[in-house]
């Protein structure tokens, strides 16, 4: 390639966009719209799975001890629990604390008034937190080996539901993003195909004055890169600030969510989404252009 040709390719690539403004705007708008929808879905799905993860992390195992253990034995059990792999935290709950929280939960103190002090039928217990809900059965096995434990309570069904939810969400999430991506590819390719179609005579003429396939292709490739870059930059430029604003609004309008989980920071999502979108956009632009001109080159 001579330098004059390279200059020509770039000049043509840029002026191609300017001269075929309707096509350029249409292609860029289409790419932008599609990538915007995909990034919207990624934000929603990403947050759902992050919230789910945070909820999972709050699910621990309650360990009830035999009656009449002395505080030394209780300490030993606490240490033994902490030693089990994947256990992140072990919290001691005295019978009094247990009764208080029971009263609170029921919102009816008076019913349980008779059980205060010596009458308290509840036992000493530990709240065991795990690294992840998936380690529950391992930890349960570890707890079995410890003596002085009367009973273990773990959220069997909740765990199952959460584990399944997790799986479903990741499958559904991937499926939705995949479907959207495929649809976007179809739409974007269509747009580019039409845009090239309107220039088929131009391509034809070039062939007839002796241009090689690559001479014709290069400007289209550069045009494709520009369409992809612009089409991917616009939704990214819009959706990051938009996302930050929406998260703010949710917290404000809906403060209770702070107690349950925190939403993902824009940076976490967009530090991955931006490069992926740009690459996706550029590849689509290039591939769309090149594959569309292909059949017009066969003359």
């Amino acid at each position: 390639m001579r330098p004059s040709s390279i200059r020509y390719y770039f000049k043509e690539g840029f002026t191609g966009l300017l001269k075929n403004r309707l096509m350029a705007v249409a292609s860029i708008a289409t790419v932008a719209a599609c990538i915007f929808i995909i990034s919207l879905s990624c934000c929603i799905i990403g947050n759902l799975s992050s919230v789910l993860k945070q909820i999972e992390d709050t699910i621990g195992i309650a360990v009830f001890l035999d009656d009449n253990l002395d505080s030394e034995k209780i300490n030993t059990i606490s240490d033994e629990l902490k030693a089990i792999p994947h256990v992140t935290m072990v919290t001691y709950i005295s019978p009094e604390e247990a009764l208080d929280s029971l009263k609170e939960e029921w919102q009816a103190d008076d019913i349980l008034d008779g059980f205060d002090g010596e009458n308290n039928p509840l036992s000493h217990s530990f709240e065991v937190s795990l690294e992840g809900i998936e380690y529950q059965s391992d930890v349960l096995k570890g707890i079995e080996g410890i003596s002085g434990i009367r009973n273990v309570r773990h959220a069997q069904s909740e765990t199952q539901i959460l584990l399944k939810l997790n799986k479903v969400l990741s499958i559904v999430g991937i499926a939705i993003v995949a479907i959207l991506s495929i649809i976007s590819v179809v739409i974007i390719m269509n747009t580019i195909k039409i845009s090239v179609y309107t220039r088929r005579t131009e391509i034809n003429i070039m062939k007839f004055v002796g241009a090689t396939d690559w001479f014709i292709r290069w400007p289209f490739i550069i045009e494709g890169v520009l369409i992809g870059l612009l089409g991917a930059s616009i939704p990214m430029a819009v959706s990051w600030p938009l996302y930050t604003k929406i998260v703010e609004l949710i917290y404000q309008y809906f403060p209770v969510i702070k107690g349950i989980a925190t939403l993902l920071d824009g940076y976490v999502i967009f530090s991955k989404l931006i490069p992926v979108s740009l690459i996706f956009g550029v590849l689509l632009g290039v591939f769309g252009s090149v594959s569309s001109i292909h059949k017009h080159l066969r003359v």
Partner: protein
Amino acid sequence: MIKVENVTKVYPNGAEGVKDVSIHIEKGEFVFFIGSSGSGKSTLIKLLMKELNPTDGQIVINNINTTRMKRSKIPFLRRNLGIVFQDFRLLATKTVYENVAFAMQVIESPSSQIRRNIPTVLSLVGLQDKAKAYPNQLSGGEQQRTALARAIVNNPPILIADEPTGNLDPDTAWDIMCLLEEINKRGTTVVVATHAKNIVDAMQKRVVTLKDGHIIRDVRKGGYSDEA
């Protein structure tokens, strides 16, 4: 230089473009293709430039059999042929200057040479004032002359012109023909399909007459309808 051997072209819809045509053109010749409308002149030209492939027979240009040519070599064949199309085929998004420059960019001429040659060629065809106009801002004859300028700018060894004066007044047409003769004198093989009786008669060059796809006459120094 150009050898057309028993070439037949039947279009997909069954129309017959040319039938069993054979013709030899030597380097440096000046040949007119004449014949009534629909007799196959454009078809023959399209076969030469490999816009169409013959249904039968073969075409050899510069000792290369173009009928059995690798696809990737076609552009290089076309660079040997300067072609003026009957329907002009100008790039609508480029100005007159750019349309002509394009033919030079295709063969990767250096920009300095492009800047030097184009004004010369545009004034040869009388379009120096229209360099910045787009094809849809030109009259019919101006478009035709742009197409001619593009065909000759690279000094191709073979120049093929399909009806290069159909939209020109007699004076301009005559100027253009003189230009073609001039180019021919410098060694270029020139093939012109035309209906311009006066010009063919005046120039007394080789005349090949087509009728219904057949060559019915081929005279060395002839007029539009010498005998017949």
